[in-house]
């Protein structure tokens, strides 16, 4: 039963209880277990059934009332065909041996034929929805911690970093900085104490990639961090998770405890002289704490406000010590790179954009959910092939990528490959992977106002362009939306956007005007309409 936050929100926990109840009334040899989410949010609640030797069958839109029917079918060694979404004969968990479920149920479409899944390539979400995230043994069974074993027993820290550099992996939090190089900076600092941090303060509106990664497969993050700590020479790590993700915190806490019981966290891991401790720090609700210097301040118990860099965290980070920070998704790629090799990884995706990226496809699109595709996949593949276009046949107008720091990309540019450089070229950013789809009914001015409202609310208030500038941008946008603005207000808005971008202290302010700048560039006509009064 898919029971990540999304599955629970769709009523999955009620279905789970009903299944449990139905099973308890029969004497069947059935293991009912929780899994994470396979990513097809629109079709939830999802239940997967595996009968020995048969294909894994994924049931969708399962209701509480279906429980009886499902259990009856399982008792008869079959599945309720009317609820079936697809079948999986085998699955590649990448770091481990191929999982062969079996054959049968030929009239149910195979996983690869489902338009939602067909363009996807699961590397980060390799186990999501297939294993129980609360049991370390299930993670180990699909090859988990084998990459850590390989790194600790057969590789030097330098070799690990070389492999990560060779993979071409870039920071998945949005910056896109080469991960291997970043590790090297911290490694080269001379210090008795070094830290690594996992940034799990995912806060972009409409983005929940990291949440699912933590809820569905927490151990892959731990494993990635352990490998990173070994390479960098850190003995302590912190996962900084936003408090709004209670289930992720619960599963991570459990994962850490289990890893400690199995000797994977603590002293002399795998009998080597590598030791590592890992703790969780909870955020207190500030978006700006996703910025690395603010995040460090927050862990230290100070107000979450960014500070100028340099010194970079690699030189002076947590408690003044060299610190390496990576996003959740960056860490999840590490075990794969170690196990399959940097060269293998670098062949996936586009030039200088290796690997895959998880996007949360949300908004006015038919099929919403978490989608993992190779970097460089065009926007249209995501919106039309995976997402199946607009709701009720409505025309799609634009997508907003990269959260409040990103921009709105018009449908005419949907052949743009989703990679760091191309998204920047059209005025947006990759960001952490939020993709909000907007259709013809959406006002782009209102959309821009929403994002400025968000960043204005989340500005820490330290530097003047962000604190004061965004406030005035919001006032100007409100004036436009009530039809009271003039041409000169428009000019002020545009000028102010540029000033904020150029003069702000941290990434929040430097990117906050992007939604306005891109909508001004691509949807000027909508602003102009408001100048004549409310349309």
């Amino acid at each position: 039963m898919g029971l990540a936050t999304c599955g629970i929100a769709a009523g999955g926990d009620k279905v789970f209880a009903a299944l449990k109840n139905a099973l308890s009334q029969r004497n069947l040899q059935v293991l009912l277990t929780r899994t994470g989410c396979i990513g097809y949010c629109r079709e939830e609640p999802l239940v997967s059934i595996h009968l020995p030797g048969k294909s894994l069958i994924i049931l969708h839109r399962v209701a509480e009332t279906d429980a009886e029917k499902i259990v009856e079918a399982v008792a008869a060694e079959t599945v309720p065909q009317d609820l079936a979404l697809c079948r999986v004969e085998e699955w590649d968990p990448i770091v481990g041996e191929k999982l062969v479920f079996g054959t049968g149920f030929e009239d149910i479409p195979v996983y690869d034929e489902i338009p939602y899944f067909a363009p996807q390539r699961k590397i980060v979400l390799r186990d999501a929805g297939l294993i129980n995230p609360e049991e370390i043994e299930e993670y180990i069974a699909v090859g988990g911690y084998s990459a850590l074993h390989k790194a600790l027993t057969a590789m030097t820290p330098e070799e690990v970093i070389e492999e990560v550099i060779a993979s071409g992996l870039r920071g998945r939090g949005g910056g896109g900085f080469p991960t291997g190089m970043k590790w090297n900076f911290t490694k080269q600092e001379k210090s008795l104490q070094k830290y690594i941090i996992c940034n799990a303060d995912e806060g972009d509106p409409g983005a929940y990639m990291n949440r699912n990664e933590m809820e569905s497969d927490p151990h892959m993050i731990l494993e990635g961090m352990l490998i990173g700590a070994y390479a960098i020479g850190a003995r302590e790590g912190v996962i900084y998770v936003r408090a709004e993700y209670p289930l992720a915190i619960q599963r991570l806490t459990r994962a850490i405890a289990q890893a400690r019981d199995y000797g994977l966290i603590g002293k002399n891991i795998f009998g080597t002289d590598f030791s590592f401790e890992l703790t969780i720090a909870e955020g207190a609700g500030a978006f700006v704490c996703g910025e690395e210097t603010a995040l460090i301040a927050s862990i230290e118990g100070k107000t979450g406000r960014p500070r100028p860099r340099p010194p970079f965290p690699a030189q002076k980070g947590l408690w003044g010590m060299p610190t390496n920070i990576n996003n959740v998704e960056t860490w999840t790629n590490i075990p794969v790179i170690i196990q399959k090799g940097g060269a293998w990884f670098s062949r996936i995706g586009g030039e200088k954009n290796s690997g895959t990226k998880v996007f949360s496809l949300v908004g006015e699109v038919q099929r919403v959910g978490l989608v993992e595709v190779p970097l460089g996949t065009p926007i249209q593949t995501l919106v039309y092939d995976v997402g199946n276009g607009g709701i009720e046949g409505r025309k799609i107008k634009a997508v907003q990528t990269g959260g409040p720091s990103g921009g709105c990309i018009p449908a005419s540019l949907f052949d743009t490959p989703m990679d760091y450089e191309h998204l920047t070229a059209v005025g947006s950013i990759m960001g952490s992977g939020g993709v909000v789809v907007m259709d013809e009914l959406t006002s782009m001015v209102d959309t821009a106002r929403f994002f400025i409202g968000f960043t204005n609310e989340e500005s820490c208030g330290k530097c003047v362009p962000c604190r004061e500038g965004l406030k005035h941008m919001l006032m100007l946008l409100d004036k436009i939306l009530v039809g009271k603005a003039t041409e000169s207000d428009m000019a002020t808005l545009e000028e102010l956007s540029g000033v904020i971008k150029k003069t702000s202290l941290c990434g929040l302010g430097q990117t906050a005007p992007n939604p306005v700048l891109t909508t001004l560039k691509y949807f000027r006509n909508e602003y102009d309409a408001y100048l004549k009064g409310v349309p």
Partner: protein
Amino acid sequence: MIQVIIDGKTCAAEEGEILLAVARRNGIDIPSFCYEEALAPYGACRMCLVEVVKGGREGITTSCTLQVTEGLDVLTESPEIIRLRKALLELYLAQAPRSESIRALAARYGVTRTRFTKKTVRDDPLQNRCILCGLCVRVCRDVMGVGAINYIGRGQFTEINTPFFEENETCQGCGACAEVCPTGAIAIEDIAPNRIMKSWSGTKVPLKTCQSCGRYFAPSPFVDNTLEKLDTALKAALQDLCPDCKRKEMTRQAILLSTGTPLPMK
């Protein structure tokens, strides 16, 4: 020593020095509100932006956080810098409409009005002059070691005051906050027998009476804490005298010493 070029002028500097300090030493006045030599660079006011032309990460950056390296070449008043500074000054004029120093600096750049809606708060303890540069917070915490005030709230709703807007007993009344404030926002008044920190929730700090002339001369906890840090002999010599009486006393002692008269025990 290394050489850096600021507005075409070659200046000598120590490697790693802060560019803003190097510029000021060489008579190049880069405006700033949040920089203070005694404190760590903060980078909040954005007034000291300069343009790096060569020898560093090219582009616009704050000179209070820029450490100089050999061959660094910067412009402090390029057309782009002036354009950005003017825009920032407009934001400041809207934020702190009552500040004379903001108005004066803006006028220097030809900015006499702002396109933005002016913020006016009734009964603002900081007199509609605060620009949240944070100098008061930092000097109180990092230099005085007190930390009686801090930021409250976030973003545009940030303000500076004592915890819970209550009178704060850790405040020593030293007035360093008012001294460093670039906009004269902090109001302090001595109303015997107390110093009233009017901007800080009306915190009352008792004043010390001079043992000799009887007048109030400094906040009591500040004097006591300062004396704590001195050696006992000096402490005994200085105690509880106002600066005038202290001068008188010192002079008297010097005269007595020069005439060979033994000092009376005080």
